């Protein structure tokens, strides 16, 4: 096996291809966190008083949690100094932008390097793209088409101004600021994010997409996303991320809340490719995310699909509260770790309504010296008669030095429940690689093909154009990761 490991190492230890920094002028807050900073953020964003009040309440609560960061995850990292972070940074706008031509050419170049052409996206795929660079939404497209259907798709800041009644009603209704350490922090200091509202009976005709990008050295990015699907509506939302290379660790603590009413369906797909740190585990993004959706009405459905290949640390459990009878929750995940990356990710399926069903498919791929954990909770409440869950957690190992762990938690309080859990662990076989070699494929191509095949069940849940990107990303990430 030694020969194979050598090859795997060679193939997987390539440098992060998205490591570059774009030169924008930026407008930053001073380092550190106190009430003054929160007031500054709020005033920079010209927020109404009610929003500032929410922030301050959350901050007050967060202060009670200091030194009580969650420590149960299977991850190790040096203590984060929350006073050593810049909490607000916005690219300076030279003027209002009406078309792509007016966008900073530096920024467009950045997107080109990432292989994301906005133009191409607009023309070929009909994706409306709301780009968030650092913390301020720069450009929103396709807004008019969406507006005709009554769909609201804008930056969170804009929603605070334009749709305060919706923001007030739903913000914090699924993830309250008291939920956890990072949710409290996010509620206090969030700078921007996306807001989406699909009215009753409307089927959103295009994939809604936001590309997040962390751009300023030492800037924590705190996204806030809120998505509401009214009765009988449908929306598919894509979130894709890449970040430039950094030596310092950057903190990212987003909150995403989804609300699905009766017969509504939300598909939320993420491709996360933030800087994972270098081969020696230096640098990389710390990604502590709280994502949760609630199936409020009967037959509502929320489906999370994630491809996590980036970040030094991923702490993320997109969950579904199945409140409405016959509601459906799904979680499809690929988590790929390489070098010294650590991922502790999974989901929570909380069954409350009758005849609720949930499906969990998790594919972990570990390479190098990385650690990859699946952590999932399936809770069947007393009221959840005839609830069903199926979980499948597979781990694929690409080296002898990596770790794969599974932590399934099952709580059943109703005897009518049917809960199934399957788990497998396998190693990429020398036989498989040699077979591919013998057909003219390089070892790199072979591993990429085998891993993509292994992840296929999840990849096929992604919207077409995203799936292609995700496949490329898996191959790219593996180029430096299998050892």
């Amino acid at each position, binding site marked *: 096996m030694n*020969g194979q490991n050598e090859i795997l190492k060679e193939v997987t230890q390539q440098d992060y291809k998205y490591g570059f920094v774009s030169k924008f002028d930026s407008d930053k807050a001073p380092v550190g966190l106190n009430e003054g900073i929160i007031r500054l953020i709020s005033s920079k964003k010209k927020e109404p008083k009610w929003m500032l009040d929410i922030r301050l309440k959350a901050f007050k609560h967060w202060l009670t949690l200091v030194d009580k960061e969650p420590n149960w995850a299977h991850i190790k990292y040096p203590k984060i100094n929350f006073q050593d972070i810049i909490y607000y940074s916005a690219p300076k706008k030279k003027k209002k932008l009406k078309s792509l031509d007016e966008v900073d050419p530096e920024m467009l170049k950045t997107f080109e390097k990432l292989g994301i052409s906005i133009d191409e996206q607009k023309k070929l795929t009909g994706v409306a793209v709301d780009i968030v660079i650092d913390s301020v939404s720069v450009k929103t497209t396709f807004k008019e088409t969406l507006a005709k259907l009554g769909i609201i798709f804008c930056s969170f800041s804009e929603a605070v101004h334009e749709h305060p009644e919706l923001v007030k009603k739903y913000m914090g209704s699924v993830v309250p600021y008291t939920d956890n350490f990072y949710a409290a922090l996010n509620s206090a200091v969030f700078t921007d994010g996306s807001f989406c509202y699909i009215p009753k009976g409307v089927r959103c005709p295009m994939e809604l997409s936001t590309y997040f990008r962390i751009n300023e050295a030492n800037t924590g990015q705190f996204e806030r996303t809120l998505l509401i699907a009214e009765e009988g509506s449908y929306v598919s939302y894509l979130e894709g991320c890449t970040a430039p290379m950094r030596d310092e660790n950057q903190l990212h603590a987003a909150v995403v809340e989804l609300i699905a009413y009766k017969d509504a369906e939300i598909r939320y797909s993420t491709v996360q490719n933030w800087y994972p740190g270098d081969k020696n585990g230096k640098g990389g993004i710390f990604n502590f995310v709280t994502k949760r959706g609630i199936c409020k009405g009967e037959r509502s459905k929320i489906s999370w699909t994630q491809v996590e290949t980036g970040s030094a640390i991923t702490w993320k459990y997109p969950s579904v509260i199945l409140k409405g009878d016959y509601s459906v929750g799904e979680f499809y995940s690929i988590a790929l770790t390489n070098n010294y990356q650590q991922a502790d990710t999974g989901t929570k399926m909380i069954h409350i309504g009758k005849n609720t069903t949930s499906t969990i498919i998790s594919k972990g791929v570990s390479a190098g010296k990385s650690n990859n954990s699946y952590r999932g909770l399936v809770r069947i409440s007393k009221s959840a008669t005839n609830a069903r869950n199926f979980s499948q957690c597979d781990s694929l190992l690409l080296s002898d030095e990596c770790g794969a762990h599974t932590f399934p938690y099952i709580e059943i309080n109703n005897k009518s429940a049917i809960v199934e859990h399957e788990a497998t662990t396998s190693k990429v076989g020398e036989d498989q690689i*040699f077979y591919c*070699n013998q057909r003219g*494929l390089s070892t790199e191509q072979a591993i990429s093909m085998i891993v993509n*095949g292994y992840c296929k069940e999840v990849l096929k849940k992604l919207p077409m154009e995203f799936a292609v990107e995700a496949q490329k990303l898996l191959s790219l990430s593996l180029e430096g990761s299998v050892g």
Partner: protein
Amino acid sequence: MLTINNLKASVEDKEILKGINLEVKKGEVHAIMGPNGSGKSTLAAVLAGRSDYEVTDGTVDYLGQNLLEMAPEDRAKEGIFLAFQYPVEIPGVNTATFLRTSLNEIREHRGLEPLNGADFLKLMKSKMEIIDIDKSLISRSLNEGFSGGEKKKAEIFQMAMLEPTLAILDETDSGLDIDALKVVAAGVNRMKTDDNAVIVITHYQRLLDYIIPDFVHIIYDGQIIKTGGKELAITLEEKGYDWITNEHAALSNA
């Protein structure tokens, strides 16, 4: 095309090939026969470049190049195809997609344009007729859940698609019923030209009823101990391996 000279190879310090000499010319079909454990499959693996085997001595010249210095994928691109005795399963990888990647890698190496989807499908269709392979197999994951016979047929189908210069069939006949055997043999015969060559590794003579070899070599204890024409295989079938191994032992002791 292929000249093997005094080839020795071992696995985990155990010598398996103990000095193989073999010359294969364009247009020829060579059969390599021998009892279990004699080194037949090791020879195939070494020629294909499997890293588990350490070549300790000897040379292999393939089309004027030092084969032993080439990476397995480069050997494949240069036209060496190994039909595996136990083809591996690769879950989630569609057979057609795999083949198209493979074919286009080889084409690129030969300075040809990659085949587009339509042309690839056309080519697949024509080759599927030759091999008589079930269409559904092509759209499934590579070898996953295939029966033994289906796997072997799929190997021959891949061979037909990739049009190798030197095809090595490693016990392709084992586990096949007579009808499947005929289909596989017909496939091999159809792709045979004056410019390519085939090495058929087999334990039994019956495959050689359908693929007529120009030469039959008997391998025993890591060496080719007897070479003859097609009739050698028949004699072997009648008299069994004991005949040849006893003869060899007698000669060695003499």
